[in-house]
């Protein structure tokens, strides 16, 4: 992993840019760099955002740390030899892949000439990595979708998708955290609350989490929905 390019975008914004490759390794380097920044420049940084190969640093003032580039180089060089073992939170996301939630499951199955059961199996088997949260509050960008499920977006986007809709758009898969227009192929729905300003950490998922989809029946969906609404549902998480 090469040293990132430092791009000064505005008096209060610095971008750290790595090679444009989308990989789990790249994500790990970005997330670790974010932790390093947080640790060493917490006084100067207002906030940061991650994406596939860039880390944006939003400074509190226009007076950035002096000799920032040298300090960063030193930190990254030291850290390279002592990168901690990867540990992540695995979050299990229950998904009902049945009617009336699986709006496009048949279409996706037909596109790939496989059965609907195979689509569900291929989608719920992998461990996904949450690369970052963007687009909408709580919207996870995931890596790990099986190539066998890469499916073009719908020609005409829907004007309104239900909260928790699980979809595939090209090589990406994800969950719509709130009601939103969207062009992805919808193959199921999760009863979980992905974003809530009432919680101490509003987003259910954060960059660096691992995620697995767990198929549930319609009656389980209804049961979990009730438990989520009454605040008793415990999201299944474990450290891996």
């Amino acid at each position, binding site marked *: 992993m090469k040293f990132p390019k430092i791009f000064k975008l505005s008096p209060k914004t610095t971008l750290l840019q790595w090679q444009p490759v989308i990989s789990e390794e790249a994500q790990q380097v970005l997330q670790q760099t974010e932790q390093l920044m947080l640790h060493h420049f917490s006084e100067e940084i207002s906030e*940061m955002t991650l994406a596939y190969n860039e880390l944006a640093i939003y400074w509190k003032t226009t007076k950035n740390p002096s000799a920032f580039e040298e300090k960063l180089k030193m930190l990254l060089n030291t850290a390279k030899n002592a990168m901690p073992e990867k540990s992540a939170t695995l979050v299990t996301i229950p998904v009902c892949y049945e009617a009336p939630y699986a709006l496009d499951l048949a279409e996706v199955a037909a596109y790939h000439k496989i059965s609907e059961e195979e689509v569900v199996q291929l989608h719920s088997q992998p461990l996904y990595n949450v690369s970052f*949260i963007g687009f909408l509050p709580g919207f996870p960008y995931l890596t790990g979708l099986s190539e066998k499920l890469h499916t073009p977006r719908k020609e005409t986007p829907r004007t309104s998708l239900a909260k928790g809709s699980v979809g595939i758009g090209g090589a990406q898969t994800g969950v719509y955290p709130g009601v939103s227009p969207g062009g992805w192929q919808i193959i199921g729905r999760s009863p979980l609350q992905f974003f809530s300003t009432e919680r101490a950490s509003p987003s259910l998922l954060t960059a660096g989490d691992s995620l697995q989809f767990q198929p549930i029946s319609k009656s389980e969906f209804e049961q979990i929905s009730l438990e989520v609404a009454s605040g008793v549902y415990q999201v299944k998480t474990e450290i891996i």
Partner: protein
Amino acid sequence: MIEVITPGLYTTVQDAGRFGHRNVGVPVSGAMDSVSAKQANSLLGNENNSAVLESIMVGPTLKFHENTTIAIAGAPFEVLLNATEVPVNRPVSIQKNDVLTVGKATRGMYCYLAVAGGLQTPSVLNSRSFYAGITQKIKLEKGDKLPIQRLPEILRDETLSVENITPEVNTLMAYPGPEYASLTIFEQQGLLEQKFTISTQSNRMATVLECSVKISAKEIPTAPVQPGTVQLTPSGKVIVLMRDAQVTGGYARIFQLTEESINILAQKRSGTHVTLHLDNSLS
């Protein structure tokens, strides 16, 4: 408390913005013309980030249920207090039962109404700025009741006044964006010589600039964006992200407007022309 008699075209509560939650996809929001909002607040001695009412083109009619002081700044609007014209850019005393009508903008887009002590609508994730999915309200509606602070009567200097400070210029200053260097010199020149027209498709999320030359850019892997980022799409659209912009985007980021230029652009009506001027002071 302030009662909303008529809500206006699209009136919202805004402060200096919602910071610290972009990593979970929450936009910054805040006043479109941040300088005018600050000015309205400073006339009352409020904190810079106090919540104000942002009106666009046609403002609300409000009934005050307690005494307070207000100040209006930003684009010039026709403002009446109990059917009498009222000055802007200075503090104005309000008595219980007064009715304030923020009418039409005579020029520009946005004006800001500050109230002594700041509006006290609910703060969500450290900001009172309205945003769908974050705050319960998205815009003012008839019958809304906006809480304000009951402050001890202080005599404000009502002769205190300021000039409108968002300049009436048509040149926007822009830093080169991360994808600027991947444009050809001809494309760069073409953009910098271009007289853009502000499109009607503009809102708090983005302002679209119509461009007469055909320049386009490939999509990029989703990357960080912020208010003021100027995007160029594969179909040749130029989009300037504004205060309610998403935190990440997949279009080429060719420029980044200066904070002052974001405020200037916010006040431009559709049909006006603007040009971009490169600011190389950062490189």
